[in-house]
Every structure is written in C-alpha cells, then in structure tokens.
C-alpha cells in the first residue's frame, strides 16, 4: 500500500513540475496521508534516519538551510521539506521524494521546519532526535491565535517526548525556556552588550510564563529577547551553552538563527572546523537577505511578515537609502493587517531617502507611514510599477531594499527573476 503511495507521489511531483503547476511540494503528501493516516509513522519505522525539527515564529527557513549546509559540508545526505511546505503534508511529501520504491530512505538526516500550529501533530507522528525551538512572537493572529495558546499546546506535546530527544532552546526567549524544564536541553543565546534598555511596549512575553509576575530585563536585544529574570518565582535566563559564532547573515536575529543551527550541528557530532567552513560558504534561502542584480543595481529582499521581523529588517537595513515595502493580506500573509501598527516605523522610517509602498493593502501601509513620519512616500499599488519606481530612485552604487510579506515576496521574486517558486 505505502509503496503504491510513494510511487504515486513521485509521479505527481514529476507531473506537476514538468507542467509547472506548482504545489508539487504538498500534493503527494496530502494524497498519501488521506489514504493512510499513519503514512509518516510507517515510512520512518524501519529507518535509521535522524530527524531534526525546527519551529518558531521567525527564522525557521534560515536555520534549516544553515543546518543543511553544515551537515552537507560533513558529507551527510540531508532531506529538507520545502520552505512554506511546513505542515504534515509537506513533511510527508519530502519523505516520498526521498524514499526509493522499496520504501527505504537512503539519507542520513531529515530537517523539517514545522509550522507553529502543526508542531503538536507532527510530534505525534514522529520522535525527533533534535527539536530546535527558536522563538514565539505575535504573528497572524487570525490564523495562529495568541502566543500563549501556542505555547501551552507546545508544552503539552513536549512533555510527552521520550528521553531520546534533545531540545535546543533559545535562552533569550522566556516562553521558549519554560518549555525545556526537566528535559534534556541545550541553550543557545546572546549575552553581549545591548542598546535597548526596556522591552518594546508591544513585546509579547514580558510576563513570567510560570507565575505571571513581571519579568525584569537586564539586557534586551529586540522585542522580548534578552537576559531576563522573574521577580516572582526566580525563573531566569539559563546558563547558555553556545553564545558566540561567526554569522554569515546580517542582523541580531540571524545571529540567533546561526547559534541555533551550530548548536544543533554540534549535538549531531559535526566538528567546529567543518561548521565554520560551511558558514563561510553559506548562501541565504530565497527572500531571506537574498541578493538580486538588475541593470547593475543591487536589490536585497528581506522577508518581513510580522512586527518583530519587520522591526529587525528595518534595523538591519537602516544604512540603506532606498526601500520598497510590500503588504499583502492573503492566507500565507495573514488576512489581518492590524500588525503594521505594532511596527516601530516612528523610529526607523526617517533613515530612508526614498520610500515606495505597494501590495494588496498599499493604502493601509501608506496610512500607517503617514502617522509615523512627515516624510514623502510614493504609493503604487501595481507591484511591477512600484519596483520600477523604487529602482529609479536607487543610484548605481546604492542598494534597494525590498521588505515584503510572504506572498508579496514570492511575487517580487517572480517579477525580478522571471521564475515561479511554488
């Protein structure tokens, strides 16, 4: 039965790819799971493959890609689910593509980035060797619900995990740290100097996840990520196992992603020399600080899909002079655009000389910026025209920074490269 599903899955993938239909990364898994709901369990039953799950609001794709590069540098064969295909069907599809017709997986590692809502379901289907939890920020409340709801569902699922699983947790995020109590856990995190002195006023987790008392922050890197301690029950930033690394990407948040990937790689037995070699040669995932060149002008795309992501993107590109912001409100972006009012445009937008806004919700974004600064902005609903305008405002030596939401990022890439990704 499963052999048939694998065969069918491979056929569908090939078929949809050759016709450029897209969705090849979820269909096969979708069909397999519909026919056999234990499909993932069955396939993995007799396999020695080691599984790494990566979850969190921001940084899943980048961390997965970093870890993949490191493991491949170590001559290991790695399976990855495609970015965005991070529900059960995406994981099943990745397995189908990498299983031979005898139902055997000939790979060493599987890295699966996992959607926040799906993580508890995935943990029912498979037991990871390593579970990396990056962070929890407010994101697409219409789809994910509230941060605390997700955290309590994660806690229930994680408490049931067997001893085999090593947890790799962000020591700087209180909600994440609380999940690691009484488990085999390693912590990555920052403990360097910080410029911020207090949590941003919309920060999600400034209250203790255990006793609800207010948290005291000694250092804050962004949002609620920092060195913290609870005034009530004493829960605090744990001893950090890894806090220094070379980071191939810009931004504090990417340093955390890199720390997570490196700590996972170390846990899986890769030596430091190989890790550093892989990091030096790293190419970013699409849309994550990806660089494109058009007419001699450099364009960098920074996927920015929630307040924390947007703030950190704006901070990282603040040396740039020309930006294009693109806001869509389709299902993958979240249909509620209220979050743009939680982005700290007041302090960042003044650093730019040319600002163009576009996307399905162009005017919402324009309205937000009107209230943030008296700076002139250009409003262009048509994305292709908006990119042209923004490029015109960018001189040869400058870089144009594009900050799009998820579906806007795919559209932007499609326009820039002429290629369809999903």
């Amino acid at each position, binding site marked *: 039965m499963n052999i048939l599903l694998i065969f069918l899955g491979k056929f569908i993938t090939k078929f949809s790819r050759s016709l450029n239909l897209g969705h090849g990364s979820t269909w096969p898994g979708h069909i397999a799971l519909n026919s056999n709901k234990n499909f993932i369990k069955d396939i993995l039953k007799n396999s020695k493959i080691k599984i790494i799950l990566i979850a969190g609001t921001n940084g899943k794709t980048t961390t997965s890609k970093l870890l993949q590069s490191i493991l491949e540098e170590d001559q290991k064969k790695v399976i990855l689910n495609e970015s965005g295909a991070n529900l059960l069907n995406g994981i099943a599809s990745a397995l189908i593509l990498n299983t031979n017709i005898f139902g055997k997986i000939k790979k060493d590692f599987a890295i699966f980035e996992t959607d926040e809502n799906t993580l508890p379901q995935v943990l029912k289907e498979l037991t990871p060797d390593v579970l990396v939890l990056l962070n929890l920020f407010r994101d697409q409340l219409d789809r994910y619900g509230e941060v*605390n709801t997700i955290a309590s569902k994660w806690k229930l699922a994680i408490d049931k995990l067997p001893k085999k699983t090593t947890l790799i947790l962000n020591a700087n995020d209180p909600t994440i740290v609380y999940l690691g109590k009484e488990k085999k856990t390693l912590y990555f995190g920052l403990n360097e100097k910080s410029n911020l002195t207090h949590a941003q006023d919309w*920060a999600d987790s400034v209250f203790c996840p255990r006793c609800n008392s207010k948290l005291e922050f000694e250092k804050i890197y962004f949002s609620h990520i920092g060195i913290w301690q609870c005034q009530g029950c004493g829960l605090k930033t744990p001893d950090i196992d890894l806090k220094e690394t070379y980071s191939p990407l810009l931004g504090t948040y990417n340093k955390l992603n890199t720390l997570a990937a490196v700590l996972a790689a170390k846990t899986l037995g890769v030596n430091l020399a190989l890790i550093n070699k892989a990091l030096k040669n790293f190419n970013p995932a699409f849309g994550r600080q990806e660089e494109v060149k058009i007419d001699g002008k450099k364009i960098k795309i920074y996927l920015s899909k929630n307040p924390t992501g947007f703030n950190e993107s704006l901070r990282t590109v603040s040396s740039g002079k020309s930006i294009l912001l693109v806001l869509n409100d389709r299902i993958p972006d979240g*249909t509620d655009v*209220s979050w743009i009012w939680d982005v700290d445009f007041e302090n960042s937008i003044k650093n730019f000389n040319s600002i163009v806004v576009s996307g399905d919700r162009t005017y919402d974004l324009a309205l937000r910026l009107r209230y943030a600064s008296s700076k002139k902005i250009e409003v262009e609903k048509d994305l292709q025209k908006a990119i042209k305008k923004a490029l015109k405002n960018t001189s040869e030596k400058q870089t144009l920074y594009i900050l799009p939401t998820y579906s806007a990022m795919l559209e932007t890439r499609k326009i820039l490269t002429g290629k369809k990704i999903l």
Partner: protein
Amino acid sequence: MKLTIGWLYPQLMSTYGDKGNIIVLKKRCEWRGIEVEVLNLDVDSPIENLKKCDLLFMGGAQDRQQKIVSTDLKKKSKILRSMIENNVPGLYICGAYQFLGKYYKEANETVIKGLGIFDLYTQNPGENVKRLIGNVAIESDFGTLIGFENHGGRTYLGKNINPLGKVLKGFGNNGKDKTEGAIYKNSFGSYFHGPILPKNPKLADYLIKLALEKKYDKKINLSPINNSIEQRAREVIAKRMGVAI
C-alpha cells in the same frame, strides 16, 4: 488646548495593533495644534493618574494577560465607573469591551465577573466553535465603519445600552443579531481591530471633540484634516466586501 489621554494597560492589553488607536488620537490632535499627553496606566499605576485623564483607551489581550489585569482593575473600578458615568469619553476594544460588561461566561460554565458598567454579557462557546474572524463593516452615526474582527466571545446587549452600529458585512457582537459594539454615555465598546481609528477618522475626531468639549465646557469645532489616504484604504476593503461607503 491640551488633552490627557489615558492608555489603560499598554503592556498587557495591547494586541492586534491596538497601539494604532493611540497614535491616531495623538497625531490628529497635534496636527491641529492641540497638545497631548499620553499616560500609560499599567498595573500598579497610581489612581491619581487615571483621574487626570480626559479620554480613555483600553485594548484587547490574551487570556493570561486578562487575568493579571482583572486583579488590578478591581482596585480602580470605582474611579473608572464614576468617570464613565460622568461622561468621560473612552474607547474600549475587544477584551476591554467585554470587561466593562456584567460577566464573561466560558465554555465550561465558569463565570468571570465584569465591571458591570455596560449592560451586556459575553459567552464563549469554546474552542470547538469557530471564532468570528474577518473583515467587517457596520453602519453607524459616524458613517460606515470598516475594520477587522477576531473574537471567540459572543456579546449580547441589554436594554440599557445601544449598539455602535448595524452589521453590513461580517459578524459583529455575536454573529446573530446584526449589532456591533456598544455606546453608553460617551463610552464606546467594539470588537473592531484594524485598528478601528485609523480607517475611521470620523470616530477618532468625534472622541477628540467630546473630550475637549467636556474639559473646556464649550462647543468645539475641529479644523478639517485631509483624509484622502484613509478614504482609499477604506474603499479597497469596502469594495471587496461589496459595501457602499
């Protein structure tokens, strides 16, 4: 002229871009030369600060945070009640709106007592019943109001309170009776996120006018502001919903 705006629990009751409402109130005053002070009324803030306010705002929150707030709010409920009864204008969104009602009944029949200032109650049918999520438009005294709603609780109004408007598209208070929000004296409750004020500048200006008229005890005419971007942003959503504005 000067207004003191009180933001109740900015750290705890601030989800879904609630901060946008404060930004809009402040800027629309400043653009007209009205001085503004925003007082952050967090847990343990002195009651004197609350008393100083000419206009109040409180937003929604996650369940865990609402529990922390409810303990602190009990200490301030007497003052808050007398301010609302005395026509101090205010805007209360989602969780805050529910708080002002008589009670909030969870799916397991647990009843959480509210402040009982608004004649309404809220029932949450539980996780197995769909939340009311999506773009929403209502007809009101301030024209068509446009926003986004996302709530599990269903609110039912009593006899002594009026709705903010009639639902044109979306769910409103409970998805059944076509009412949305509530008006009691100069206080407004609503489920509208979006946030509510940026795309509904008439309502924002009305709150400012009410606050100034009460404080200075005279008729106030606010100078007009160009709302063309607001209008474009409203049109995009209204068109999608098939609502005239």
